[in-house]
């Protein structure tokens, strides 16, 4: 992984830059310079990559964030924003010559407004803390990435995080009402509020999932939803992932949109069962969890319909949750799937492609071939409703070359996803991890249109450079027009 060449001059000025920053962020622990104290910040959730940041800055107010960014802008210093540091794609990987701007101290819930069904929160508040703040009153915040206990809402905005309920309730981008951001020149900009839909261009839509390259989020207004009256789940075992995939298609084809629909392959089922004893059947090749949520009458009715469909698809076993405890036990194995796989292998590498659902059998077959070819095992968990596939590649980092082999295997899987009509990443982001694969999906013109958007927010390219885009290009070069005046023929096309 190649990062932009560090500016040695900036690195040499570390102490004086830190002194300047201390004046801007005077609170205790606001600026971290000491090498030992910087070390814990060297990585995010993609732990294979580690870089010591130039300085870590932990501001407490929006004014401090603005002052730090303006300072970086004026002095040509790079900035990497960071929420809770749970990114699985290296979105918050530091730069040697860049400031790591941590938003962890922005941890307050500013307002809960039930009249307008929203909550206004600071970016460092964890995803789960939003739900915790409103659940006693019967509400929740819908997107639920598996890191929700730790990940911050600011990071969720940056990555457009998903979770297991996306098909019915959407990703982060579908659950936001307002944002406050600070651009690199230190300007504080508010977008949206408590009303729906932006006036003018949808800047909120662009900022969501922009991976910290456009602005630093300092406040978020999220929609909160009334918790469903009830939820019940089915645990369905199949002899093949084809049959399970067929069942998923038929459920949706019947007009049913489940709250959650998850699939696990044999390897993941066994790992999870060994770990948490969820009561999963071990004689099946694929396991489906289908959860229906909503008014009690509706859930009971739909559970029966899904059961009929599952039987028609040749289900080997069907269990239906009869209590909240039983429903949670169905999920216990799925939720523990990653650590469960972590128990049976020294290391695992979690991938995140999305495919058209009907391509699942092809993808699984070809992935099995790749697994043989690389000599690495792979376990699969799948957000079956929306086609988001999480293959977990098992490897041992202590064996020389095995990490690289796992990465190559992962890249081949993502190429396969694109080849069958899917995409490189469904919810983890591009970051540094999938940066160099972007040309698999986009041609140069596509990428240039995206990069020019970055220029609109950050013309000097100082905010989180080296992420998302495989090639750093100067904005002046990107802005050059390829069509010259008076050189195009009058188009010979139909006219009225």
């Amino acid at each position, binding site marked *: 992984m190649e990062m932009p060449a560090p500016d040695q001059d900036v690195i040499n000025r570390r102490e004086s830059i830190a002194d300047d920053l201390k004046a801007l962020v005077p609170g205790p622990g606001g600026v971290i310079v000491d090498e030992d104290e910087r070390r814990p910040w060297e990585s995010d959730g993609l732990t294979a990559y580690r870089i010591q940041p130039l300085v870590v800055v932990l501001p407490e107010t929006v004014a401090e964030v603005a002052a730090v960014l303006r300072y970086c802008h004026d002095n040509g210093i790079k900035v990497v924003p960071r929420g809770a540091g749970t990114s699985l794609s290296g979105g918050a990987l530091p730069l040697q010559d860049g400031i790591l701007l941590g938003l962890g101290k922005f941890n307050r819930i500013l307002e809960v407004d039930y*009249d*307008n*069904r929203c909550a206004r929160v600071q970016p460092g508040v964890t995803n789960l803390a939003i739900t915790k703040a409103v659940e006693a009153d019967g509400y929740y915040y819908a997107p639920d990435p598996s890191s929700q206990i730790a990940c911050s809402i600011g990071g969720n905005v940056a*990555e457009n995080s*998903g979770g297991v309920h996306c098909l019915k309730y959407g*990703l982060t*981008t*579908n659950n936001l009402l307002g944002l406050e951001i600070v651009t690199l020149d230190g*300007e*504080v*900009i508010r977008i949206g509020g*408590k*009303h*729906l*839909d*932006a*006036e*003018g*261009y*949808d800047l*909120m839509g*662009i900022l969501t999932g*922009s991976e910290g390259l456009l602005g630093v989020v300092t406040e978020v207004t999220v929609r909160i939803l*009334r918790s469903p009256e009830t939820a019940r789940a089915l645990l369905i075992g199949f002899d093949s992932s084809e049959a399970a995939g067929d069942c998923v298609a038929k459920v*949706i*084809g019947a*007009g*049913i949109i489940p709250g959650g629909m998850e699939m696990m392959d044999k390897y993941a089922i066994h790992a999870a069962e060994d770990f948490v004893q969820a009561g999963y059947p071990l004689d099946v090749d694929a396991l489906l969890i289908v959860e229906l949520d*909503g*008014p*009690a*009458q509706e859930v009971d*009715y739909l559970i029966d319909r899904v059961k009929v469909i599952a039987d028609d698809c040749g289900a080997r076993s069907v269990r239906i949750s009869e209590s909240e405890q039983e429903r949670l036990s169905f999920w216990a194995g799925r939720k523990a799937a990653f650590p469960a796989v972590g128990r049976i292998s020294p290391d695992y590498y979690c991938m995140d492609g*999305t*495919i058209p*659902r009907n391509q699942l059998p092809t993808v699984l077959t070809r992935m099995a071939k790749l697994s043989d070819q690389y000599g690495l095992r792979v376990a699969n968990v799948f957000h079956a409703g*929306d*086609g988001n596939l999480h293959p977990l590649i098992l490897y041992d980092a202590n064996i020389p070359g095995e990490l690289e082999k796992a990465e190559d295997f992962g890249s081949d899987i993502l190429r396969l996803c694109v080849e069958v009509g899917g*995409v490189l*990443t*469904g919810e983890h982001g*591009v970051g540094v991890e999938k940066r160099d694969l972007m040309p698999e*999906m986009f041609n140069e013109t*596509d*990428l*240039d*249109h995206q990069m*020019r958007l*970055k220029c*609109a927010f950050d013309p000097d390219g100082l905010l989180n450079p080296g992420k998302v885009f495989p090639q750093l290009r100067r904005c002046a070069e990107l802005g050059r027009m390829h069509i010259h*005046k*008076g*050189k*195009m023929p009058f*188009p*010979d*096309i*139909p*006219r*009225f």
Partner: protein
Amino acid sequence: MSNFAPENAQQVLDAVAWAVSEGAPLQVRGSNSKSAIGRPVNTEHEINTSNLTGIRLYEPEELILQAEAGTTMAEIEAALDEKNQQLAFEPMDLGPLLQGESGTGTLGGVIAGNLSGPRRIRVGAARDHLLGFDAVSGRGEAFKSGGRVMKNVTGYDLCKLMCGSWGTLGVMTRLTVKVLPRAEKERTVLVHTDDRQQAVAIMRDGLNAPYDVTGACWVPRSVTARIDVEHVTGTDTGLVALRLEGPDVSVSYRAAQMRELLKDYGKTDELHTSNGRKFWPAIRDVQPFAKPGDERVVWRISVAPSEAPSILEKLNGLSGAEAFMDWGGGLVWLALDMPSDGGADDVRAAVAGFGGHATLIRGSQALRGAVPVFQPLSPGVKKLTERIKASFDPDRVLNPGRMYDGL
């Protein structure tokens, strides 16, 4: 004067490249069903997508549909109907409101305008249903973004940017949208009330209950007279309407629960599926202000639902003022008999401080040239907006000035 009607994406590219090369701006349009929205675009040349037609891919079980930008909504809705599916955000048909014909809009136009109907509160806006697109930018270059899958965070989400950009950034040639099943049944609980404040409270209680409301509107008595639906026309009070959709067993249960919950607010009533499927399109398409001879200007105001009564209080005294609310109060449709200035200053002053926005949806060409049609932007947002426009369309060859003067 050339009116280009390209038949494929390459021809769109040729036309835009020519426009860039000649410095000859283009009015960008689909079928013209919404060309009366926005500031007048006074260009010599025009490009329309109405020859780019056809559904390219429709996979009901994958919940996706891909079509050329100029495909009519009528064609798309007919295809979806056959499989009992729909565009869940309820695309508006503004033909009659804008004194044109019904059913002529195109998919590209619906997405470019990002105008969503009553179900927006539950399932999101048009912008939440665009999964991918191909377009030609004002640089005379073809580009694409997104894909054909539900969950995708690969690169910037340019789909969001195209929605609501009114053809000012690119000419979309092909779009992929998310489609969803149509509900088996629907019921609409009606609560009689003339009081706006109380109406918003009723909608709040309905929306905050665990009954999955997919439409929440209030129409005053004067407006009910112009909605031709049994139990609505000719009532002697205003009506709050709360829509419940789903399987039969579920909607009847929820309707009963809802009526019980709201009974202290006043008399309740119920519309069943067939009447509901007339009532909600009337709200969606602003039919009460679309009657022949109604020449009033029409504003679309998006606000925090709880602020709607205060805003209406301020605007109630204006000439010819009549309003109804959708989105639980979050969307106010306001008609005013103020042809010369459209009441723009009053409307914007009333919204100011509440953080919402107002768009002039119907007004004469002269009015649309004279007052800001779209909500004026804050300085920070304006700067970014100008830079984004410059990055996609540096020479301003696509719909110049349609959204903002100088953009």
